[in-house]
């Protein structure tokens, strides 16, 4: 039987991995975006788990919305990335320091 | 008095006139001027019936209007006048007329907007004096800053941006603290009625904080030492009309606020902290007197002199507690409050007149430096006579209005403490020194240079304006009794309010 604890632990591991990914891949915007997707996935895991274990459908509805937002976010994020690359020929985060006064 | 809502009319007539001018645009400057003058004069005339129907025997508000304004906040459109606000409203309507005339042929840049700004400002200032609802008061109080900000910022001198910023930040800082105090009072009282605030019991700790918040707001406006440094800069950069309104009326808002809010709402804190106000007032009189002595810019000199003279207002307003402490009774405290009020009116007239005089000279020579002038009376005898008159009034000559307030305040100060009177009376020497030294250097003496020699004496318009003010200054100096009579009941009532403790009995 898959208990709530199993799911939550798995979600925690995923979450931690994605956070670690943000640290490790601080140069590459593309990988940062992927880590964020992973992060959202871990959140979705929690929603699904609680929804099922509490017998409430609302959690799953939220997952639905999160998926929507995540899709929108990655679409715009990637669009920005493309524009960025056109301007700078680079997706290295350390090159993006124009706003640092 | 239910026929016409005269106070509303006084507020909205100039504002409406100003909006009409804005709509008219700058194309027809001539029409704009006459329209502005018409509106200003009509407002002045409208104000006169107020005296007719005003009952000097009562301290309660008269000509009251009350409509629901923001019902969710229990804020009302609530207007009324008493003996303190009526003279100030009259002063406002009176001073706007010369200001409009003074800009007649001088303002060429966007004339319609210039006059519109002054008319709107006039309406808002009247609103401040009429408002009996604290939120309405705050609305007018803050709204007033905008036209003034524009007047200095658009028609001002070369450093106008610095001056407007300083002016705005200073006054805004104070106002924000006032707003906090008003909201606190609102939460305690349940609505925004000022008279409700006045009868609200408050503990000493509450009163202290509210008092300090109000004090900052009003001290900036008065302005009291050490928050006065915005005033010289604002005056120097403002156009003549702006300086006149600033000195004549806007500074009075601070004094009015102290009398309307600080003293009656927080009498116990006022009693406890009166040393602060009195100390700052005396510093203003003496310290600023010396500073004014050394100014080389005429407008700055008059601006500093305003600070010193307004010191008498704050001094007079807060003497009651020390009088009670030193003599055991409140007899004489009314002298101080009367003196403060008369000083406000008188200072409005005199400083306004002096700024107009400087404006007259500036229009001809385009300099405010004292050293650019000398012997002006040789070429402008009529002007010289007016200038000397106003200068003497500024130094508190008996027979002019400048004397009345100072005299009453010094009389009251002696009752409170000999040294208060001693320091306050130094204005006799310092005031005369800086004002008459200015006169000596600018008006008297041989003609200083060719530019002065080419100056033309007053034209009819300028003569009219200065003559109006001169008559007012003399009339008030020779017979101040009617003015004092008007506010006597209100002042007595105020004294009663501040002599009673508001700390709730435990």
């Amino acid at each position: 039987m898959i208990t709530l604890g199993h799911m939550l632990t798995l979600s925690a591991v995923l979450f931690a991995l994605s956070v670690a990914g943000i640290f490790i891949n601080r140069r590459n915007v593309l990988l940062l975006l992927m880590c964020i997707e992973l992060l959202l996935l871990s959140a979705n895991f929690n929603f699904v788990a609680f929804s099922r274990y509490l017998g409430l459908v609302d959690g799953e509805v939220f997952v639905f919305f999160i998926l929507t937002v995540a899709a929108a976010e990655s679409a715009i994020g990637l669009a920005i990335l493309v524009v960025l690359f056109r301007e700078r020929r680079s997706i290295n985060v350390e090159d993006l320091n124009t706003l640092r006064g | 008095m239910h026929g016409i809502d005269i106070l509303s009319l006084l507020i909205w007539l100039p504002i409406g006139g100003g909006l009409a001018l804005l709509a008219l645009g700058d194309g027809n400057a001539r029409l704009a001027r006459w329209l502005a003058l018409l509106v200003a004069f009509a407002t002045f005339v409208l104000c006169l019936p107020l005296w007719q129907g005003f009952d000097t025997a009562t301290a309660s508000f008269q000509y009251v209007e009350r409509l629901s304004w923001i019902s969710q906040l229990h804020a009302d459109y609530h207007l009324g006048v008493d003996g303190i606000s009526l003279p100030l409203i009259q002063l406002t309507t009176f001073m706007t007329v010369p200001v409009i005339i003074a800009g007649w042929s001088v303002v060429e840049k966007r004339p319609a907007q210039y006059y519109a700004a002054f008319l709107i400002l006039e309406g808002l200032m009247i609103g401040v004096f009429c408002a009996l609802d604290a939120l309405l008061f705050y609305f007018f109080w803050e709204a007033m800053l905008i036209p003034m900000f524009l007047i200095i910022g658009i028609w001002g001198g070369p450093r106008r941006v610095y001056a407007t910023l300083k002016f705005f930040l200073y006054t805004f800082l104070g106002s924000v603290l006032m707003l906090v105090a008003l909201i606190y009072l609102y939460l305690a009282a349940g609505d925004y009625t000022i008279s409700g605030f006045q009868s609200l019991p408050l503990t000493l700790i509450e009163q202290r904080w509210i008092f300090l918040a109000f004090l900052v707001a009003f001290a900036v406006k008065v302005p009291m030492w050490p928050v006065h440094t915005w005033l010289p800069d604002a005056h120097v950069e403002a156009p003549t009309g702006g300086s006149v309104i600033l000195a004549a009326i806007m500074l009075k808002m601070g004094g009015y606020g102290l009398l309307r809010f600080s003293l009656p709402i927080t009498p116990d804190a006022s009693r406890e902290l009166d040393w602060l106000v009195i100390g700052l007032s005396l510093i203003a009189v003496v310290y600023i007197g010396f500073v004014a002595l050394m100014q080389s810019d005429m407008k700055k000199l008059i601006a500093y002199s305003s600070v010193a003279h307004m010191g008498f207002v704050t001094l007079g307003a807060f003497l009651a507690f020390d009088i009670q402490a030193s003599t055991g009774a409140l007899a004489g405290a009314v002298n101080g409050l009367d003196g403060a009020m008369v000083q406000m009116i008188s200072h409005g007239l005199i400083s306004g007149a002096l700024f107009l005089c400087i404006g007259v000279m500036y229009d001809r020579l385009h300099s405010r430096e004292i050293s650019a002038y000398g012997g002006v009376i040789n070429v402008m005898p009529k002007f010289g006579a007016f200038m000397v008159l106003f200068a003497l009034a500024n130094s508190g000559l008996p027979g002019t209005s400048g004397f009345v307030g100072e005299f009453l305040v010094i009389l009251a100060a002696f009752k409170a403490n000999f040294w208060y009177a001693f320091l306050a009376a130094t204005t006799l020497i310092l005031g005369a020194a800086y004002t008459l030294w200015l006169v000596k250097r600018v008006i008297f003496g041989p003609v200083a240079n060719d530019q002065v020699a080419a100056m033309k004496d007053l034209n009819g318009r300028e003569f009219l304006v200065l003559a109006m003010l001169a008559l007012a200054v003399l009339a008030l100096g020779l017979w101040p009794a009617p003015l004092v009579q008007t506010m006597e009941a209100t002042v007595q009532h105020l004294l009663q309010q501040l002599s009673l403790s508001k700390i709730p009995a435990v």
Partner: protein
Amino acid sequence: MLVAVLFYTFATILVVAGVGVIISRNPVHAALSLVLCFLTSAVLWLLIEAEFLALVLVLVYVGAVMVLFLFVVMMLDINVEELKRGFTRYAWLGWLVTAIVVAEIVGVIVQRRLGLDVTRGAVPLPADYSNATELGTALFTRYAYAVELAAVLLLVAIIAAISLTLRRRRGLKLQDISAQVAVRASDRVRLVKMKAEPRS
């Protein structure tokens, strides 16, 4: 038992794939690892009977978003070598924080439980239960407004993405139809009346 075996198997794949996402230097590998993550996640959600979402995850994420990622990765001429230059100086900090976070979350789950019985399994479902029906009912009744908003959000995202990436090339010849319609004859032809010039 089978369920447990499946869970542990796929959970292990998921974690390994996750590690793969974050440590692979090549973006293509990372993206593919992420696809694997999503697929295994979908399996795990199927295991706890959230069928509809599992399918949506596969369809939307694997089918659309990840393809988008791969497109971008391939379209952009990324200098992989430069990005490959090892982990940053703070990588150890990342791992440390990760370890602490995992430990703490697990600690919270196990030790404090937040008023829940974490050892409990999922609520058993009746035989005729349809996850899609339930979800659809909730979405189009209670959450109708939110769905509308989500739709608008997606629309905004589409427009934003298009307008961001739309490239106006210089020298491209296009018709300006409004200018063509608004043209007046006098702009085009000017009749000049003049005397004949004498032949020089």
